[in-house]
């Protein structure tokens, strides 16, 4: 195949599907008249074009309905995604928005777990606790230290008697 053939064959799909600009057609047609190999490629492409797969009936509406729901921020997890919703809605916005709402919830849960882990680490780190090191596994069990301290809990040890009394008084209110 020479350069002329390569250039012609590059354009054959556009010729077959009528996408080739009118101004480019004479050059392609001229070459085709002289080149049996390019004509054979044209014939093969024409056969392929005749059997182009088409989307199944209903796919456009299915995607359109789901896309509209995905675009509309209203009703994040409401009736559109409920049991009575259309299949498109159930696979569309309802699911999409459900994911959006679920994701932050998982984020909060993860943050809470992290706080607990950090809190446990503050009062009992594996390095400082030979019992934990002796357990050997990669996973450190989550539990409270003996004194019940958790991250975020008030530390009462440093309070004076007066401050402690004040605090207890406020808690009783």
């Amino acid at each position: 195949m020479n350069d002329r053939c390569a250039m012609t064959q590059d354009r054959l799909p556009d010729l077959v599907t009528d996408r080739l600009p009118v101004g480019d057609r004479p050059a392609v047609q001229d070459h085709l008249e002289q080149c049996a190999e390019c004509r054979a490629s044209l014939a093969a492409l024409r056969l392929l074009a005749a059997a182009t797969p088409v989307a199944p009936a209903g796919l456009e509406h299915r995607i359109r309905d789901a896309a509209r729901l995905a675009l509309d921020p209203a009703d994040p997890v409401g009736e559109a995604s409920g049991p009575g919703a259309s299949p498109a809605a159930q696979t569309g916005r309802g699911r999409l928005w459900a994911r959006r709402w679920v994701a932050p919830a998982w984020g909060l849960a993860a943050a809470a777990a992290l706080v607990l882990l950090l809190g446990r680490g503050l009062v009992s780190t594996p390095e400082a606790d030979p019992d934990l090191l002796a357990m050997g596994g990669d996973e450190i069990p989550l539990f409270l230290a003996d004194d019940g301290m958790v991250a975020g809990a008030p530390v009462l040890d440093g309070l004076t008697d007066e401050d402690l009394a004040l605090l207890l008084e406020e808690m009783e209110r």
Partner: protein
Amino acid sequence: MDSRDGPDTPDEVLVDQARSGNEAALDRLVSRHHGTAYRVALGILRDPDMAADAAQDGFLKAIRALDRFRGEARFRTWLLTIVSNEAKGQLRKKGRRREAVLDDVTLVADRGVPVDDAVVAVEEARRARRLLQELPDKQRLAVQLRLDEGLSFREVGELIGSSEGAARVNYHHGIRRLRERMERP
């Protein structure tokens, strides 16, 4: 009427309108590209039902990500990349794709759409498609994307993970090998 609202409205204008909640613009994007999305997914999955699901899921991912579409690539290429990734993801989940192809796929020829006077017979056309399916993935996809969707070699390269030059080579090899197979009895 603003000419930008006509049937030839560029995708990028429709994308802007869809971002603002314009459902009509969204509908037109779907109408324009659902067939292409389906065929791209079908080319990867070779299963019409899976391809329809991948086309829909890919489309929805694109719609959700419209705010992140910056226009560096054409919308169609961007959409098809997402659909293609979706199809590849489904392929990984489902394992090997089906070997049987085309038997339950609707073709242009089945709908009686006249493509060209030189078309000899529906069966011959179906045979050509069947033989195309036997080619290596990149060659097959290069031919399909160039012919069925009118993609440039650069766009084909983006979708099959090759350079523009490699996409062109794959296309030429694909055509040559297809012809060789078609010439066999």
